[in-house]
């Protein structure tokens, strides 16, 4: 999320403090809880599951904090835990990962959405999003849901930052073209 060295160093110190005193973890929690939650919400499309998995993620992070070595990519580490928790969750419940949008959530957002885009436009976008392959959806989740920087996305995906950036913008172009094609 932050790319400059000063912020990274500051976070590294904060993590070291949290490793010594648990209440110091509050700063990290406050910084990242919404990103982790949104990331899980995007992947589960279910508020209750996203909350449950967010809880599991942070409780697990607290347990493993002593083994974490500050590398400047704490959010990537948290999201890796979150992703594994979600995979475990679906494995236990023997469910396929549902990637379609939850209508309830969509309905809750309807007013806001209507203020921003027309209904037809929105429906086309939703349909296109639901048809995206997993790797493309992951790019959107990391960028738009978890609000990751391209540097962090590169770390999380084990890919080159520039490559991730290009892939993301190409994906946006493809989605735009499809929306225009659908509406045209």
């Amino acid at each position, binding site marked *: *999320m932050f790319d400059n060295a000063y912020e990274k160093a500051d976070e590294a110190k904060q993590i070291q403090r949290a490793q010594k005193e648990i209440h110091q973890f*509050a700063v990290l929690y406050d910084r990242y*809880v919404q990103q982790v939650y949104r990331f899980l919400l*995007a992947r589960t499309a279910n508020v209750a599951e996203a909350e449950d998995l967010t*809880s599991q993620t942070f409780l697990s992070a607290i347990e493993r904090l002593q083994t974490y070595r500050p590398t400047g990519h704490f959010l990537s580490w948290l999201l890796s835990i979150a992703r594994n928790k979600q995979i475990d969750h679906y494995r236990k419940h023997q469910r396929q990962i549902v990637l379609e*949008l939850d209508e309830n959530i969509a309905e809750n957002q309807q007013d806001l959405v209507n203020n921003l885009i027309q209904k037809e436009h929105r429906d086309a976008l939703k349909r296109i*999003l639901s048809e995206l392959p997993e790797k493309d959806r992951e790019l959107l989740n990391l960028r*738009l*849901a978890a609000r990751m920087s391209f540097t962090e996305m590169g770390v999380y995906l084990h890919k080159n930052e520039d490559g991730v950036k290009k892939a993301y913008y190409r994906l946006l172009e493809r989605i735009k073209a499809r929306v225009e094609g659908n509406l045209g």
Partner: protein
Amino acid sequence: MDNLCLDAFELELEKAMGLSDASPQFVQSLRRKVLNPQKSNYWRCPLVWRVALVLGLVMSITFFAIGPQNVVVAVRQWLGQYFPGIGFIENSETLRILESPVSVKSDGVEVSVQWAYTTEEKTVIAYPEENDTRICQNWLVYSPETRQDIQTLALGKLVLPDGHELKWDHNGGYQPVPPDIDDVILIIYTHKAVPDCPTDVSCRCMDEDQRIEIPLKFVAPSQGTALEIYEMQFTPVVPTQTLEKDKE
């Protein structure tokens, strides 16, 4: 939370994805939970691990309370004694092994019994490997009971000095050799294949004279004896006549 600059289209996408922040109530509730963990990591373990941990602790305490040497003795008594090539022998006090490998030559064939043992349950005599090509080249082992050529000496006869036969029980061995008897005789039958035997005619009629008697002597092994893995060997002896012909 966010210092990323999203353009209008990205914002549209974000809305279409149905994303929203977590409720303040949830965030506060989880904050308390994370910063004040009520239970230790141990009790977050799955039940099966907890049970395994408790069992392991109980076993360790018992092990050290009884004494490691006593436990080893008890386990050895329970499992029996392990002999390489034989395996664990229950009640190894009753185990007797072949004193030494025995070889007998008879009418062009040499038969060696390299290892055998007897316990209070059974007597086991080694048998040759199935792919041992030395068997059945010139001479075959024949079982009078099954009237078939065989590759296992276990189907021979095992008799005591008084002529009493120890039966083959098909459970992996003969009847045990009585504890007061150490010497037994293994009898196997051989016959020479007839090269020009007509079809459908048995050319392998057995004769008591074609039997080989192999004396076996069983002794108690010394404690801790490491036995080698022995296998029975058949060594067909090249007939003298053939050798003489070769020389000519």
